[in-house]
């Protein structure tokens, strides 16, 4: 049934062979050089029609490459048919997993927004009370002369170690947190804090 055999080969070239027919053809291809040569010619004609011929067109060359690769694979393991082993090397595993496209752009934008948010929060509060703390403190108590002088000498800076300054700062920080949470606005400055100098 030579005709049927070649018809199966033709269907294999087209990727249209299934089940038992495929089994039969694969068996023939594995052991019958004539069938191999026929398949090569069918495939070559298809490649020529698609203009995807890559090397010397002689069948001998094509056989040689197939044989070379098969010989090189002799020492390679035969796979067991179990679920692909996660530890087995794969092309994808060899690569460093790249960040999603646009990740760095997003991250840079977020970082800049966070910086601006922090500057805005601290800048607004400090500008609103740039003179407030010193005048209030200076007017209300004589025992805070040192604080006043500290605040005066370091304009726009608070000595956060002072209880009142600390209380005020804490108040603003709490307000900031509550406002951003309650308003539904996205807080770019997610964590705002201060430290004693």
């Amino acid at each position, binding site marked *: 049934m030579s005709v049927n055999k070649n018809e199966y080969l033709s269907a294999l070239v087209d990727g249209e062979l299934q089940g038992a027919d495929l089994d039969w053809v694969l068996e023939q291809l594995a052991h019958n050089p004539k069938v191999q040569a026929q398949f090569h010619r069918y495939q070559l*004609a298809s490649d020529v029609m698609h203009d995807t011929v890559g090397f010397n067109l002689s069948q001998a060359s094509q056989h040689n490459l197939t044989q070379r690769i098969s010989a090189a*694979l002799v020492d390679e393991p035969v796979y067991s048919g179990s679920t692909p082993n996660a530890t087995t090397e794969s092309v994808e595993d060899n690569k460093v997993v790249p960040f999603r496209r646009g990740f760095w752009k997003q991250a840079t934008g977020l970082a800049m927004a966070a910086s601006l948010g922090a500057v805005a929060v601290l800048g607004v509060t400090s500008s609103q009370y740039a003179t407030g703390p010193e005048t209030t403190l200076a007017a209300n108590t004589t025992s805070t002369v040192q604080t006043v002088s500290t605040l005066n000498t370091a304009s726009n800076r608070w000595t956060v170690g002072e209880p009142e300054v600390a209380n005020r700062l804490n108040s603003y920080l709490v307000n900031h947190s509550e406002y951003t949470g309650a308003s539904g606005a996205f807080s770019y400055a997610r964590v705002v804090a201060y430290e004693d100098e």
Partner: protein
Amino acid sequence: MEERKNVDQELVLRVQAGDKQAFDVLIMKYQQRIVHVITGFVHDPVEALDVAQEAFIKAYRAIPNFRGDSAFYTWLYRIAINTAKNHLTARARRAPLHDVDASDAVQIFDAPELKDFETPESNLMRDELEQSIHDAIDSLPDETATAIRLREFEGMSYEEIALTMGCPIGTVRSRIFRAREAIDKEVTTVMGGRE
């Protein structure tokens, strides 16, 4: 439409199940295309074949993890491209900067400047083959010629051709086979004098 399992998928499953010979079929099927792709990077014929061999070996080693998310050829194509680039890097050559989609490969690699791999003799043989194949198709009965043209030039499946031509899939398969037999006579004639 009934979902038909792709032959490549079937072959991959067989390789994964321990059938090494199924991989030989994949090599036979794609060796020309893979070498064609690699020659876009590696112009020396001997090197290109070495790179192709390396690419197929890498594919075999990686095939247990191939899950069929993409077509087998697309996956193999990527391996071939990466292997070619690595080869160039190893040789301190300058590799192309961007990946190329499989769909763009034919146009890009057909560029005249990428044909260094080809020799006058191989060009002549290719031209002769192309001409003989077209002559063979032209001499076929209309229905047979239409079937092979729809398959090879339009990329239709047997099912699509059957719908287009209004005939059973088995008839399509027979027509395409008869066309291939006619083409094969010409191919054998052209190649017979070269081997």
